[in-house]
């Protein structure tokens, strides 16, 4: 398939979206009781579950502990049935290791690690269904789980993927669009300051289009931020109401 088929002349994408349209975003917080924080994020057909444990004592020997800040420990793992082809193992392959690294770097900047010296914060991300934009959904889910756990963050970290087809920037790529060579990138920003914490582009985009694509992705991130912010405010409001009735 060549590029133009991803965006029809009428301006529709394969799944019927417009170029700048995001997929339906759903999320819920505190889905598990045992974890200190957890979130379930569904973006189109990509479903990610994130759990946060901590801050707690550093596991596996105190050698790893840092005296002035927290250790952020991440794990990215995808269910063996999450993809169309069955995966042989859920984690440990190069892609998961790379994802783990991205998550770790992103959240080491986003979490106020100085608040938790000599501690460890675990972020475990589990992909239940993969339909493109896995990294951005994983980052979004992890952010929500961190908020749910009440861990100090500089700001939300919102991520969105974008790509270029026929000079037009598409937002929030699905699996089909992602599998097209030389298209996509993922951007994560801190929405308040609009500073970029992560750009991951492992494909080829013409240099003229790069900044345009990034800008489009940033717009997408802001959209996501608005949704999340509303969600969290609603949840906090509900919790506050509960506390009031208890008193």
């Amino acid at each position, binding site marked *: 398939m060549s590029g133009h088929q991803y965006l029809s002349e009428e301006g529709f994408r394969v799944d019927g979206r417009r170029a700048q349209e995001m997929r339906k975003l759903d999320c819920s917080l505190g889905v598990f009781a*045992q974890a200190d924080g957890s979130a379930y994020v569904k973006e189109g057909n990509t479903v990610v579950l994130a759990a946060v444990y901590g801050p707690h004592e550093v596991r596996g020997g105190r050698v790893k502990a840092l005296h002035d800040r927290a250790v952020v420990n991440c794990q990215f793992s995808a*269910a063996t049935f999450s993809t169309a082809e069955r995966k042989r193992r859920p984690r440990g392959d190069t892609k998961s290791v790379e994802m783990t690294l991205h998550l770790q770097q992103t959240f080491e900047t986003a979490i106020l690690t100085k608040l938790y010296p000599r501690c460890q914060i675990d972020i475990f991300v589990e992909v239940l269904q993969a339909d493109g934009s896995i990294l951005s959904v994983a980052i979004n889910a992890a952010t929500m789980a961190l908020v749910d756990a009440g861990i100090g963050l500089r700001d939300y970290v919102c991520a969105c993927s974008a790509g270029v087809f026929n000079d037009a920037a598409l937002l929030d790529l699905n699996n089909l669009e992602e599998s097209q060579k030389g298209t996509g990138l993922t951007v994560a920003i801190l929405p308040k300051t609009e500073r970029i914490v992560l750009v991951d582009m492992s494909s080829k985009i013409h240099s003229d289009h790069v900044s345009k694509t990034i800008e489009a992705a940033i717009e997408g991130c802001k959209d996501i931020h608005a949704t999340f912010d509303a969600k969290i405010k609603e949840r906090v409001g509900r919790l506050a109401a509960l506390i009031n009735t208890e008193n």
Partner: protein
Amino acid sequence: MANLAVSDSEKTFIIHGVEDNLRCDGRGCLDYRHIELELGAAPNCSGSSHVRIANTDVLVGIKAEIAAPDHAAPDRGRIEFFVDLTANADPEFEGTGGDELGQQIAGALAEAYVSKRFLDLSSLCIVKNQQVWVLFVDILILELGGSLYDAVSIAVKAALYDLRIPKLTVSIGEDGKPEIEVSDDPHTQEPLAIANVPCFVTLSKIGSQFVVDVSQEEAECSTVNMCCAIAPNGRMATTMKTGVGSLHPDSLIEALQLAQEIGVALHKALHKQFVKAQELSGRTNGFLL
């Protein structure tokens, strides 16, 4: 979490409660917790289910693939289990930490499903000696709240209930080799006969009583469990003793009989839930949202 600190006095409290047939959550010794069940939880699988028993949360996805059969059984399909204990359930499981327990559960499941009396896989044969359906049953454990074997086996049975395999037509091609055609029509998909599929019923001994569906806290109080795979007709596919304790033969007999009774009742209740869940399948967002 797998490692839970339960103090001695808490243990005593639980044991005394069990003796009076009253457990911390108000159940009797032989009552299950509420089982939440959802079919079709992973739409990109041939069959899937999501089961939640209090804190125990299990997601199962079955993918059917075509492959060569086993040497030993050329005219039967295969079923393979993989249990992934995610770090979401317990940070201990990070990396390869959960593999040992996962393999143990997968092994027990394989043992329970091995006989064709309980699950007849001959309907999964496409071309004898050459190609059969292989069912990859992938089990994801998202949260641990005790009674893992039971929850996993219920989820697997539910996923098998939800399983639809595309109908295939086999014709002999020009070169004399069979050719397989997959029908595109989703309505020609076939379900699998699961009427006799067993489920695990685990009875844990707390004090002198047997207790079913233990929570994590209760599991800390028991040293020995009888884990029986009971089919809907009351037959047993496999039985094993787990845990670090030992049992007197008399209490073993008691446990086996209890397991049979509970198992039969469980299957009846499950069947009703399956039918109900199927009606709702795909129409709800799932109970995580």
